[in-house]
Structure formats: C-alpha cells, structure tokens
C-alpha cells in the first residue's frame, strides 16, 4: 500500500524551531532525500537544516545548483529515479523556476517547492514578508493545468505541510508548493514533532505507461532504471511518451487528465480552518501570516458580540468553489486581510455574491489585528 504509518526519522517531542527549519524537518520526515537549491533570502536557512539532517542520517543528496533553473531541473531528474526531491526559493528564484515547473506539471513529476515569499516585484525587499505570490504560484507557467499550493500559518504547520506536500505530490503526481513568507519562515515557535506520521509513497509500477489520459485519477509511475526504455517528454505525448505535436485530440486528453486528476479529488486536497462560520453574519477570510492577525481580530470582535467568523485556507490552490459558496451562503460581508493588493479578495469576489472587503498591505508590515478590527467596525 502506498500509505504507510512510519516512525519519524528524527527526535520527536517539542522543540523551538524556526519556520524554515520546521519545513525542512517535515520534508525530511516525509522521505525527502534529494535537495537542490540556490541561496536566497529568506529561504536559505532551509538549505542549512536539510544538510544537517542529511549529514546526521547519512542519507540524502544535497546539491547547490548554479541557479534556480538548474536546481528545479535536478529535482525533476532525481524524482524520476524514485527519490523524493525538494527545492526552496523566494520570488526571484521562483521566477526562474517557472519553465521547468511547467515541465514537472506536464511530465507529472512529484516534487515539492517551498516558496518563502518576500516583497516584490524584482529584488524588492529581500528580508521583509509579502503575500504577493498568491496568483504567481497558481498561474506561473503557460498552458492549462492544476497545481496544489499549501499555505501554513505557523511553524507547526510548516512542519506538517512539509509532510503533507510530499504526500499530495506523490499521490497526485503533481509538483506541490508550500507557500510561506518571510515572517513565518523566520519566526521561532514551539513545534511538536510526532512519533509517527502517515506517508504516501508514489505507486511505482514498472509495467505502467509513464503517463495517462484518465480524466479522474493519477496513474502509477514507472522509474528510470526499470528496464522499460522510458520516454519522458514535456512535449504533448501519448501514454507511452510518444511525442504527438500536431494532434489536437491528444493535447485535449492530456490537459483533461492534468486537471481531472486533481479537480476530482478536491475534497481530499482542499483544507480549511474555520471558526463560528455557522452563525456568522461576517467572516474574516485569509491565509498564511495575515490569517494569524485575522484570527486575533475575530476574537476581539466576538468579545464585542459581533457575529463574525473566521475562515482560513490551508490549501489555497485548488480553491474549492462549491464548498466556499455553501459555507458562505448566509454571510453578508467577508473581510480579507492579505499582504498584497487583494489576490484572495479577487478570487472570493469571483466565487461569492456577498460583499468582499479587502484589507490590504502593500508595504512589508504584517497586518495587525487592530487594523483589521478597525476596517470591520467601519464597515458593519
């Protein structure tokens, strides 16, 4: 069975960890044994932690690429040998990875990318947080596809999502992104490392074709070295990897597979953290660092007897529209704090009919609870 309950290969217990360290530990526990990356603030500490884990366990290969393009490429190469691979970066590095991210999507290569957001565009403010990559991680590369993006709000979740990102990636054969930001990545918090975790290892089938046209499920994966003369290509291909660069029908089928294998399992993938949604007239909806302030703001407002709820997306992509519509059916106004010009706001405006009120921060200051409280009170 691909699901296994395993003892974690590191010390379990409660530790004070930085966010970057926590995600590295989570990935290591999930079985990540190949890491390639290029130094960048605020993701560099991940490299240090990965090296520590590889050295003390005497397992795993660490590679510093000549750039981010090489780093993600090396991860894809390693993944086709059956090694769980990860890279981590921030905006400028993510920009460079985009073409090969598309390759990983099209070749259905499991791998994990941690994007520690900093302020952009361009070099921006390297050591200051932002949530400006919300849409970039979803729509970075050309063409139609689905991708999975997790958004942790604490060091604890960085550990957990390090594991979950690999599980989802292996299960759905899709590159999976952990989208965090400078504030959480550099935060130190107590993290509970459990004794055991559930780990999904991709279904390896040497006889299986490398690709699939199934509209519902991901397919098992053969590996390099299986002796089957695999054809892996980022050009449109048949199930067996034969390039078909002119037939529209084949392209249609393959894109339907890339989308269907994820959208049909959205209830397994999509995750939220909700408080008081049932009786709420108003909701604070957010994700990542801004959700922490949103949560506190909700508590303060409820003390004032305002019927406000809290809705946090732990998975920002794919976004489960039907579920959100149903959960927000009685909600009058939604307040959306985020450190950008209103990315989640625009998604919710598209999905919901009620009023969406963005609480944005275009500088690089984490939004404070009182700022959210103020906007809510002004708009009741």
């Amino acid at each position, binding site marked *: 069975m691909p699901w296994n309950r395993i003892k974690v290969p590191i010390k379990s217990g409660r530790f004070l960890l930085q966010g970057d360290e926590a995600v590295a530990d989570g990935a290591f526990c999930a079985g990540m044994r*190949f890491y*390639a990356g290029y130094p960048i603030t605020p993701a560099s500490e991940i490299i240090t932690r990965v090296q520590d884990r590889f050295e003390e366990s005497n397992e795993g*290969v660490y*590679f510093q*690429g*000549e*750039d981010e*393009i*090489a*780093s993600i*490429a*090396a*991860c*894809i*190469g*390693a*993944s*086709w*040998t059956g*090694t769980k*691979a990860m890279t981590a970066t921030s905006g400028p590095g993510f920009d460079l990875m985009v*073409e*090969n991210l598309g*390759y990983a999507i099209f070749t259905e290569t499991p791998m994990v990318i941690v994007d520690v957001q900093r302020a952009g565009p361009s070099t921006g403010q390297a050591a200051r947080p932002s949530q400006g990559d919300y849409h970039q991680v979803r729509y970075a590369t050309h063409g139609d596809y689905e991708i999975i993006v997790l958004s942790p709000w604490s060091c604890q979740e960085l550990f957990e999502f390090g594991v979950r990102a690999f599980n989802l990636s292996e299960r759905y054969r899709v590159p999976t992104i952990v989208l965090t930001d400078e504030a959480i990545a550099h935060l130190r918090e107590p993290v509970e490392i459990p004794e055991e975790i559930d780990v999904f290892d991709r279904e390896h089938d040497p006889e299986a074709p490398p690709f699939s046209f199934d509209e519902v499920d991901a397919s098992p994966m053969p590996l*390099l*070295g*299986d*002796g*089957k*003369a*695999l*054809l*892996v*290509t*980022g*050009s449109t291909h048949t199930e067996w*990897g*034969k*390039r078909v660069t002119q037939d529209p029908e084949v392209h249609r089928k393959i894109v339907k597979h890339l989308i269907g294998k994820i959208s049909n399992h959205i209830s397994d993938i999509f995750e939220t953290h909700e408080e008081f949604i049932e009786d709420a007239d108003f909701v604070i909806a957010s994700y990542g660092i801004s959700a922490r302030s949103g949560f506190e703001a909700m508590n303060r407002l409820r003390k004032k007897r305002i019927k406000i709820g809290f809705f946090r997306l732990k998975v920002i992509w794919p976004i489960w529209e039907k579920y959100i519509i149903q959960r927000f059916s009685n909600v009058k106004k939604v307040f959306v704090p985020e450190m950008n010009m209103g990315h989640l706001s625009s998604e919710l405006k598209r999905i919901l009919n009620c009023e969406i009120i963005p609480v944005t921060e275009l500088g690089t200051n984490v939004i404070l609870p009182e700022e959210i409280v103020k906007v809510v009170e002004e708009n009741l």
Partner: protein
Amino acid sequence: MKTYMEWIRTEFFPTAFCPGCGHGIILRAIAKACDELELDRDNVVFVSGIGCSGWIPSPYIKADSIHTTHGRAIAFATGVKLARPDFTVIVVGGDGDLASIGGNHLIHAARRNIDITCIMADNNNYGMTGGQYSPTTPKGSKTSTSRKGLSEAPFDVAKLVKSAGASFVARYTVAHFPQLVNSIKKAISTEGFSFVQAISTCPTHFGRRNVTQDPYEFIDYLKRNSVNIKNITSSAESMGKIIIGEF
C-alpha cells in the same frame, strides 16, 4: 541486423530529420559506441533538450530518455546522476541548446567534473527554428538572423569546456565516423565530465546558406576542411579549419 540496432527505436522510423541531416549519423555513432562498450541498456539514461538534436536520443535511442526543456538537459542529468550514481548518464544536445541557452549549465558541469557524458550535435545553427545563428556559427556566416554575414565571433566550445575542468574533451565531425564512435566510447568510459563536440550537418539551413545543400558535398567539405590537432605545427595551418581530435 547489426547488433547496435538494438539501441535504436526503429518503430519511430523513418526519422523526423531532413534528408541528409548529420544528426542521424551521430545517432548511429552513439548507438555503435554503446553497443561496442556492451553497456547495460537498463542502466543508461539519455537526457536531451529541445532542438533537432534533442530528437537524437528521444525518441530514437532505445533506453530510458528524458527529453527536457531547451538548454537544461545537463541540469536534469545532474539530478539523475546524483540520485543514481550507478547509472550511465548521457546528454545529447545542440549548439544552441548546450552552448547558448544552456551554456551556464555546461561550464558548471565541467567545473564540477560530474560523471556525465555530453555530446553536442553541433550544426552551427538553430536547425529546428529555421537556421538562426548560434554561438558556434563562424564569423561572416549567413544565417536567417545574420543575413549580411555574422559579425559576432563564435565560442570554441571544446576549449571552453576543457578549461572549465572536464576530464575528456574531443571534437570530430560526422565525416570522421570511426573516430567519432571512438571518442564517444572514450567519453563514456572516462570518469568525470566528458564532452564530445560532434560537428554535424544541417543541409537545410546552414549548409544551404553557407556551404552546400547537397548532403554528401557537405560531409566531404567537413572532411577536407578539418585538421587534426596532432598535425598542426603552425597556427596558419589551422586558420579557418575545423580542429579535430582530443583536447
């Protein structure tokens, strides 16, 4: 049937190459080298980029192959090799692929001296996209993007890779078939980064505009216009010639 044909995926034949394209000769040279070395086909991984050259191993070589993005084959291959050091990893790419867009990966792989063999099918231009100039196009050449003659100077890629730290570097043309096969065998057998610059012919573009559109005449031109590095006694002898041999 010759034994090296076991390395060829004939189900995709006839190939997609133009009539008389030198890339088909390089394909045979690679198959022959692998066959003569008696490599275990199940442990050989070919990695290629985008371009007519990218088609040489994928789909035409019957072994595991990853056909990657333009210029990035060496980077993908690095991941394969690091994760599975027991695999024989062979990169095949073009002059545009490996020396232009992928030039950074090439010199860094040579610097690391990672145990990968890299074969550059060098037809002095971008064949697939219509014959634009590449980093190996000789100065003065007419290409679709240097219509009055190229004003830029080319790279000597073999020397570049050698000085970056590669273990083995050779250059032969498709007109020197037995030597080409031999150098590929040596490259695969040498530990560390090995690089073979295989001068190819693109009769459709570079040949038509600069040498000849006739596939045989082009090959004959390569033969007549090459000089072995061992036989060069003065720089005048190598002026304007293709220097072949091991570097």
